[in-house]
């Protein structure tokens, strides 16, 4: 019997863009599934609608730019943008907002700069911010998590709400929606309530909002998978979560009743999704290791500052976009020393 012998080098398949993107999508599955479990079918419908729109927009843009269409769509980067957008927006977002957001992300944020690899900003977050600034009411109408939801919608009902805007009989938007934990925390802090008083509400679980903290855990699982597969390096997530935790705990230590505890910031809103999936975007983030540490730490600081003193409920998108803008500068000042060269002499 003859065995097939393979000569060296014994290496894995070469990394390709498609494989990377598919692995990130795979890592997104646990978190996304948890969101569908807690917040209903709307998330799934948004994901499908956003992906379809993204592929169509990408095809249109490539046709206009006279580039090959099939290989670029086959790299799944547009689909990944669409999925990240879909898990960031409210489950019952009207369909035309999803379409506007994705069209903006693909056409104006990504393709107009030259497509994948050239966009200075994260497309999904730019679309999220565009919609949040333009349509604050629709973008903050979140559903309560599954265990607090008195009127869970079926798949068909969710689709009806998203595509036609008609609510199931007898329900109003006010009965259906609920402020996110992060939103309700800071609104009530503004009304000079105390943190311990706010946390009495059934909205809260062990660390953050009920349901939300578990979504965070599942995203963390996906993030660890990405770290294990070396799609992302540890620098950005660790420095971002670390600096957010540091500043949150510092202020919590100074005044326990005015600033919620550190883990609250980690397990509410989009912090974990942002730390592992969004801030680590290889195109718009820093590329040097030292730079990535600075970049992540600044995002963490910005998240804390905007959440605590800013006007919008969540801050991850704003923080990531602001630091996207700073990334080239950070990279410039954190160039690693080439091996064999001496560092700048200080006399």
């Amino acid at each position, binding site marked *: 019997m003859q065995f097939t012998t393979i000569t060296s080098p014994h290496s894995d398949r070469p990394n390709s863009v498609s494989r990377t993107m598919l692995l990130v999508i795979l890592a997104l599955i646990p978190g996304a599934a948890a969101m569908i479990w807690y917040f209903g079918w709307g998330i799934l419908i948004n994901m499908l609608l956003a992906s379809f729109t993204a592929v169509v927009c990408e095809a249109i843009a490539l046709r206009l730019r006279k580039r090959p269409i099939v290989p670029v769509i086959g790299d799944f980067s547009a689909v990944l943008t669409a999925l990240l957008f879909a898990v960031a927006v409210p489950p019952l977002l009207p369909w035309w907002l999803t379409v*506007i957001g994705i069209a903006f992300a693909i056409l*104006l944020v990504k393709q107009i700069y030259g497509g994948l690899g050239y966009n200075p900003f994260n497309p999904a977050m730019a679309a999220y911010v*565009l919609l949040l*600034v*333009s*349509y*604050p009411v629709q973008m903050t109408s979140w559903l309560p998590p599954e265990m607090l939801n008195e009127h869970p919608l079926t798949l068909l009902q969710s689709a009806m709400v998203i595509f036609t805007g008609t609510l199931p009989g007898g329900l109003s938007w006010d009965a259906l929606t609920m402020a996110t934990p992060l939103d309700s925390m800071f609104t009530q802090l503004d009304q000079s309530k105390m943190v311990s008083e706010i946390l009495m509400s059934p909205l809260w679980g062990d660390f953050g909002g009920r349901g939300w903290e578990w979504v965070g855990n599942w995203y963390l699982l996906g993030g660890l998978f990405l770290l294990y597969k070396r799609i992302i390096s540890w620098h950005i997530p660790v420095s971002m979560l670390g600096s957010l935790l540091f500043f949150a705990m510092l202020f919590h230590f100074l005044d326990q009743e005015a600033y919620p505890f550190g883990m609250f910031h980690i397990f509410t809103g989009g912090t974990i999704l942002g730390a592992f999936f969004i801030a680590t975007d290889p195109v718009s983030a820093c590329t040097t290791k030292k730079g990535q540490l600075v970049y992540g730490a600044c995002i963490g600081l910005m998240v804390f500052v905007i959440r605590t003193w800013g006007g919008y409920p969540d801050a991850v998108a704003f923080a990531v976009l602001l630091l996207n803008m700073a990334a080239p500068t950070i990279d410039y000042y954190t160039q690693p020393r080439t091996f064999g060269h001496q560092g700048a002499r200080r006399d």
Partner: protein
Amino acid sequence: MSNTGYGKLIKDGLWSNNQALVALLGLCPLLAVTNSAINGLGLGIATTAVLVMSNATVSLIRNLVRPEVRLPVFVLVIASFVTAVELSMNAWFFELYKVLGIFIPLIVTNCAIIGRAEAFASKNHLAPAIIDGLAMGLGFTCALTALGSLRELIGLGTLFSQADLMFGPIASEWTISLGANFKGMLIAILPPGAFLGLGLMIALKNIIDKRLTKKKPVAVTAADGDLEAGTTA
């Protein structure tokens, strides 16, 4: 200069050397006040008036001013006219004056005006200088109004709202609305909308220019014979 016919001056000002879309001068008022068509039009006309008068004056005094001190003199001339325009608007268009606010005195700092004074008026006779000022001003006004209309339409779903500020009470019915159900995109009338809108307008102008230069050789041959080919090209 001998090669500057009036036609070329006008074409330069309105299109091929448009101060807003090509030279990218005067961006501060351009981006700040164009949240509605009427605001854009109002500031554009004020700028045009200043530009025509300053170009004329600079052209008249061009042989009297020593080159070493020309820039301060130009600024003084421009500032005097801006003050005159500001006081007139205060007198006759008070509501519009209140809306435009600080951006009327800021016309002084509009680089388009001192740019034209330095680059054109100080080297040319009175008539070309006036025509140049008028053409450049109108080009700037067109860009301001177009950007204002675009932003107002996307952001609020209306066009020419508050036209009565400028044209008197008759104009209050000129407002075109896309209907009360139109949910405007708020970002268009916020500062980011100005940058996005201006970028898109410049892109559109470049596309048109590209098409025109491509068409030219075809159009010449088409004019000779085959009309069908000319229209499809």
